[in-house]
């Protein structure tokens, strides 16, 4: 039962939603309108996903609370994490319940604009440095295929930056051709393959052949 019920849930939910793309009217033997049932189930899915968002936070708090309690190395950083999490959560919830409180709204926008948003941007921006370093150290034309990759990348960089046209007026034309013709060809082949693969996986999940998400054991 512990494995069968989940398989039945996946099948019933999946087949109901999939049917709604092909059929209209009521579900045979009932007065339920298929489109309405599909909309309701999708809405329920949104609610379950919202609950799932809490899982990561619960895990995060558990790990860092333990670190703080045992005063492990760098425990002060764990305090920073938990405090930061709590502030963002509490302030957000407060603003939701008291949307007319202007000072709290401003505070909420300020912590977003000056902490979360720029720190997030900085974390991702660091990759810009790594790309430069990797280009220098690892990007080598060691084989014919690697040369194709490298050549396309260099032409793309020269053609897509505004300065490319000043260096040689054919750079943008070449990079445009690479993007719209060659890249489109490769991506389309990959996409078609991906769609077939994803559809096959979806069908395996639907009929219960693929059970990886149930985990091992009972």
């Amino acid at each position, binding site marked *: 039962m512990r494995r069968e019920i989940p398989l039945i849930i996946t099948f019933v939910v999946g087949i109901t939603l999939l049917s709604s793309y092909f059929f209209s009217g009521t579900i045979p033997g009932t007065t339920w309108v298929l489109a309405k049932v599909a*909309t309701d189930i*999708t*809405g329920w*899915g*949104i609610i379950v*996903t*919202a609950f799932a*968002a809490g899982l990561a936070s619960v895990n995060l708090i558990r790990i860092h609370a333990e670190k703080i309690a045992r005063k492990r190395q760098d425990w002060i950083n764990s305090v920073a994490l938990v405090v930061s999490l709590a502030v963002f959560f509490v302030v957000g919830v407060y603003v*939701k319940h008291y*949307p*007319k409180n202007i000072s709290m709204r401003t505070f*909420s*926008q300020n912590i*977003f*604009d000056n902490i*979360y*948003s*720029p720190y*997030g*941007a900085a*974390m*991702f*921006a660091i990759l*810009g*440095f790594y*790309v*430069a*370093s990797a*280009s*220098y*150290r690892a*990007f*080598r*034309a060691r084989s014919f295929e690697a040369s194709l990759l*490298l050549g396309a*990348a*260099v032409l793309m*960089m*020269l053609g*897509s*930056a*505004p*300065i*490319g*046209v*000043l260096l040689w007026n054919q750079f*943008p034309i070449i990079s445009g051709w690479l*993007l*719209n013709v060659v*890249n*489109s060809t490769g*991506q*389309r082949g990959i*996409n078609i393959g991906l769609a077939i693969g994803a559809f096959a996986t979806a069908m395996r999940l639907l009929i219960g052949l693929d059970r990886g998400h149930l985990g091992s054991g009972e």
Partner: protein
Amino acid sequence: MIWKKLQDIDRRIIYTLMIVFLLYPMMFPIGIPIEIDATTKDVFNTLKALNPATDTVVLAASYSVGGAPDVGPQFDAVAKHLFELKIPFLVPSFVSDGPAQVERVLARLESLGLVYGVDAVNLGFITGGEAAVKAFVDNPRTVFIKDFRGNVVADLPIMQRVDKVTDLAYVLDFQTGNPGYADWIRQAPGVKYGAGLVTVSVPAAIPFVNSKQIVGMLKGLRGAAEYELLMERPALAVAKMDAQSLGHLLIVALIILGNTAHFVDKKLSKK
């Protein structure tokens, strides 16, 4: 020997060069001309052809804070353009970072005369990825209950213009990942859909532009700069394009230098 040394150059030298090459043109702009791509013109012309009396647009804010420097300026420019054209727009967010970023843009436009709830609405965040996109496509009018500012969405004048998804003249989706164009073209095949993409996602989306499933595309920061130029209001994105050019030049030079050092060293050591 020098070629070997050149291969082991300290990475911090590369980082310093990067900072100099990017910062210098930001402080002292060069003014390199920018050519405008056809996909950017498609977005601009689509919006320009709309009728303010009857048409409503969706600007979906599905971009995270990490990718915001690439996509945010696109949103800024298009929102400003719609405000000038007096075309009302709904802003749903399918990524949690969206609504607070949009709030800044709307506040700026409100100071210029935009009427919240009539000309634009920040609908807030709906979780669920593709399921959320489907829910919005099924019921664009009722799927959001309260907006980001706590107003009841159904009471807002702008929402009276939209009943079903086909009432939307154009959906322009600003995105940094999931949910993104793939989810939209799966769930809303009958909708005129355009994409504001983070530069990294552009190549994968091109086949859908060629097949006309995506009508109009803004390609990263450059797309934003091109849009600003089309509006004849060069702003922050245009200002960064010189730095983008020098950054590219530096990386191309590094690739050439790195390869030269590698192959010359290999040849010499064989001897």
